[in-house]
């Protein structure tokens, strides 16, 4: 007999017989339902619904939940123990989901069921407290049963965690994506229309190649691909230049470099694009200056590929830098020293030894830039001009005058195909190949300094770029304090006051600024989702690094998948999937939290994997043999040693939640407006001053949060002269 089984049995029965089975319309935390509980048919527990309100289809759930009572007296090693739990859990979970999908708010969801059983004359809403607890109990029974049969060393916690992660990933990544894919083969009235799918998929807007032959634009797929390749190549080259300067030269202001590389990561979307317009647009500061000084006529060259490229370069170069600095530092100086003692000069050494050793890192940086560029929404939105790219087309296929959801789905499939192939290439081609030359044997050598021409080249590209970044950020900071950028540069606090004013009213402070509402919501959502993201990410990393089980590769792919899915696609998928029972989440804050959790989870997983691979597995095993269960081991041994990874995961998921836009626009609701969607509204309304002021505040808040997280999580105590890395470094995407 296991206490955990009893516990979950109790949880399950509470969910079944006490708590309301359906979601309470007034919100999860509102207890107005207590007034009519339990007689009202909408707030009754499942047991009562099944017996008293004619919802007979809920009764088999009770049956599945009763079965484990029969094995209460049995030992874990008893074969019946495992068998009963497996059956109860498996059947219960499958049945609960099946009835949830089969019966919706309009009765039977499928015509076949209607013909088979006749009209239902009843309906049901989304699942609520009760259903969640019961499903949790079933999931636990299933995993406990699997564990009792000796899977994964019989470890209940690990099997349970794997089950939980799989269930969550299935519900919040695969389910919405499937909904999208289904709508691709439907027409807009949800009829099955495969012919339409092929017409849309192979249409000229997507694959046209007119740009090669005439002065026209190409298909949107080629546009996206071309742009992504340019951005990938550009960010990789620039990132390499920065990485070389940071590691192989005596450059003084390395700290400053670091700041410049962090800033774009914590910058809300649109802001870089806006600043680029304000500088290089037809009436931008630079263009105006050039006209005044050299009589160069201002033009609209910035709109389209050049502008997107510039803005994405500014935004994504830091990512390439963070990937490459690790690689460049990781090359053993001994290799370079060996080459030099073999009579190669520094240039030949760099070309023949150092550069080939960096190859996997370069490819990695390129692919990250490629994927980020494809998925980017904010910059093409502001700077795209007539250069159509997939992420924007998807958005406007839905919200534009076409209202063509299936076209959006088709475009999403094209975009997914691109990002997934890049992702696949990265994993297959690079995943196993590592030239990392850090060994346990301390390399005492010094990295050689850069050959002269390379040094000139690196400085020549990186320093002007750094200067440009600095100018862009000065523009941003400045932009919040002037009346109207480009017209009236008088100093004003107007924008800040409008957004963030606080007045004293009759009942104390009144947060009268227009931005407060979305600001607090954003902070709350980001603060809630960050630890959850880090938690599930690190748990997944722990499972991936420390456990062996069948289907692990598929498991890993599933958890990393959401990294390759553009936010627009996720956003639409979430609306399609979670607006109707059985999982009804739209309009709540929960859907935002969940969206962030699963979108940013891969970052936590990667940071966790990287850090955990460095922790000797025998530490966990020692703890296990000393009688600590896996959960205790994870908590007492693994987590304390993972502090840098925790910081990285927390910071990144926090920052991403604060700056995400593409998925968010579809998910914000009356009570849960997010800062970025508010800023988008301002940008649409041409209110750049307020947008920029708000963004500046967000940047400051994120900087504070990063510092706060560093302090709160603390440093790991190893008694070694371990260099603490800056939190963002462990994460690369």
């Amino acid at each position, binding site marked *: 007999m296991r206490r955990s089984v009893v516990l979950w049995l109790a949880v399950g029965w509470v969910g079944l017989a006490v708590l309301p089975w359906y979601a309470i319309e007034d919100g999860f935390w509102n207890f107005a339902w207590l007034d009519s509980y339990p007689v009202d048919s909408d707030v009754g527990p499942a047991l009562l619904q099944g017996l008293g309100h004619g919802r007979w289809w809920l009764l088999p759930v009770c049956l599945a939940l009763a079965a484990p009572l029969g094995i209460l007296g049995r030992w874990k*090693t008893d074969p019946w123990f495992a068998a009963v739990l497996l059956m109860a859990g498996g059947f219960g979970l499958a049945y609960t989901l099946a009835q949830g999908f089969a019966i919706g708010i309009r009765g039977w969801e499928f015509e076949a069921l209607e013909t088979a059983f006749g009209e239902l004359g009843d309906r049901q809403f989304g699942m609520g407290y009760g259903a969640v607890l019961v499903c949790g109990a079933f999931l636990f029974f299933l995993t406990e049963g699997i564990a009792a049969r000796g899977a994964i*060393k*019989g470890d209940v916690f690990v099997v349970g965690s794997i089950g939980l992660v799989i269930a969550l990933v299935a519900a919040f990544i695969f389910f919405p994506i499937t909904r999208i894919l289904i709508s691709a083969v439907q027409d807009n009235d949800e009829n099955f229309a495969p012919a339409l799918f092929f017409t849309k998929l192979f249409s000229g807007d997507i694959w046209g190649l007119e740009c090669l032959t005439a002065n026209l634009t190409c298909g949107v797929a080629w546009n996206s691909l071309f742009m992504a390749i340019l951005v990938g190549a550009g960010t990789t080259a620039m990132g390499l230049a920065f990485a070389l300067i940071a590691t192989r030269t005596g450059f003084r202001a390395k700290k400053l470099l670091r700041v410049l590389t962090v800033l774009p990561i914590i910058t809300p979307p649109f802001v870089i694009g806006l600043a680029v317009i304000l500088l290089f647009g037809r009436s931008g500061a630079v263009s105006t200056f050039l006209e005044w000084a050299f009589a160069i006529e201002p033009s609209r060259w910035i709109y389209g590929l050049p502008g997107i490229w510039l803005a994405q370069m500014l935004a994504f170069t830091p990512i390439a830098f963070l990937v490459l600095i690790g690689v460049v530092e990781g090359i053993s100086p001994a290799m370079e020293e060996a080459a030099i003692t073999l009579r190669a000069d520094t240039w030949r050494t760099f070309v023949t030894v150092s550069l080939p050793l960096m190859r996997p890192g370069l490819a990695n940086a390129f692919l990250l830039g490629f994927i980020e560029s494809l998925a980017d929404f904010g910059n093409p939105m502001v700077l795209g001009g007539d250069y159509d790219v997939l992420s924007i087309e998807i958005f406007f296929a839905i919200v534009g005058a076409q209202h063509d959801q299936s076209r959006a789905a088709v475009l999403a499939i094209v975009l997914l195909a691109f990002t997934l192939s890049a992702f696949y290439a990265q994993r297959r081609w690079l995943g196993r190949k590592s030239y990392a030359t850090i060994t346990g044997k301390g390399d005492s050598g010094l990295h050689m300094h850069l050959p002269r021409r390379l040094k000139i080249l690196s400085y020549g590209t990186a320093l002007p770029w750094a200067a440009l970044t600095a100018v862009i950020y000065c523009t941003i900071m400045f932009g919040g304090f002037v009346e109207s950028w480009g017209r009236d540069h008088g100093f004003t606090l107007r924008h800040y006051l409008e957004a963030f004013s606080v007045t004293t009213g009759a009942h104390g402070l009144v947060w009268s600024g227009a931005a407060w509402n979305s600001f607090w919501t954003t902070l709350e959502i980001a603060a809630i989702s960050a630890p959850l993201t880090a938690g599930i990410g690190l748990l997944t990393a722990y499972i991936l690094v420390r456990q062996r089980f069948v289907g692990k590769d598929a498991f890993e792919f599933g958890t990393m998948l959401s990294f390759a899915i553009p936010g627009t696609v996720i956003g639409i998928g979430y609306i399609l999937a979670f607006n109707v029972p059985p999982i009804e989440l739209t309009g709540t804050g929960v859907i935002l939290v969940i969206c962030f959790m699963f979108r940013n989870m891969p970052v936590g997983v990667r940071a966790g994997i990287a850090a955990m691979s460095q922790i000797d597995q025998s530490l966990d095993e020692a703890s296990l*043999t*000393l*009688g*600590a269960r896996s959960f205790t081991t994870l908590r*007492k041994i693994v987590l304390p040693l993972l502090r840098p990874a925790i910081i990285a995961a927390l910071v990144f998921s926090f920052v991403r939640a604060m700056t995400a836009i593409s998925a968010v626009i579809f998910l914000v609701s009356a009570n849960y407006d997010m800062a970025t969607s508010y800023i988008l509204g301002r940008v649409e309304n041409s209110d750049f001053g307020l947008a920029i002021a708000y963004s500046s505040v967000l940047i400051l808040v994120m900087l504070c949060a990063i510092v706060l997280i560093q302090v709160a999580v603390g440093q790991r105590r190893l*008694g*070694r002269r371990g260099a603490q890395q800056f939190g963002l470094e462990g994460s690369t995407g």
Partner: protein
Amino acid sequence: MTTKSTAASVRFQSVVKAFGEVVAVRDLNFTIEPGSLVTLLGPSGCGKTTTLRLIAGLEMSTSGKILIGALEVTKLPASERDVCMVFQSYALFPHMTVLENVAYGLSVSGMPKAEAHAKAEQQLALVGLKGFGARLPSELSGGQQQRVAVARALILEPEVLLFDEPLSNLDAKLRRHVRQEICDLQRSLGLTTVYVTHDQEEALAVSDRIIVMRNAEIAQTGTPHELYEEPADLFVADFIGDANVVTGEIKALDGALAVVDIGGVERRLPHRGLPPGEVDVAIRPEAIHLSRERVDDSLSGTVSKATYLGSHLEYSVETPLGELFVIDHRVDGFAPPGTTVSVVMADRGVTLVGSG
């Protein structure tokens, strides 16, 4: 030697462990008596560490049964088995002090912190590390870390104590010293102990019994004496100590003895169930005596290499049986290369091991 009341036997019944296609342990059957120290010995990759981890519950067997005492533990996770392990890397938790490390097992099992720490202090004193409790593991020497690892395992008074190559990270001198300490500790506490090593000398020194493994299977089980004197086959003969393997021929059987012709010299040796015919003979290097005089019943040979090693001499001798490796403790009688010698086999240290 006392046997502790908590000490339990360990029994493997037809245990198989496969990692995908690779079989790490094939049909393993053995019993370890309560309170004894048994060594798993074998070359790397033979399955000895897997066997140890199967006992600990860090691996789950693919089939078969594992019993600790009377309890079947085949599917119990590590944390639910009464087994402690000392790791090759010691696996001291780097973020905890020495005292916290030692008290860890007690505190995760729910003992109040003060009590656990008091016990841990005692245990540290027992391994001679009184006063080191506040340090971090990284501030200790290798030998001290090793003792902390042992203390951490012992404090739980487990039914079975496991050692995974505990001495491999120590230098040669320290190794002998610590080896003796482990031995003494085990004997005074009477714990059932399973010890993994690839070092045959270490195995001979500490074990009550040795299980020699090869290619995922048991090659031979026995006391150190049995294994050395009566190796079951060439592999064991060669792995436990050095052995010259030569070809002989069993002429006839005579009770328990066989009449064997080794390079023309006739010897009477236990036949160990071998039939007449060609046979492999293992000759320990110290069972060969070299003499500059002619001796009856000897082979003639020529010294091809001679090495002076202080406590003894090592020779390579060309004989009709092939090149023989010889250890001679009479260091004053140094025979330079080229010397012609008579090669005499002693009574002990010559064993029939079957035909290879």
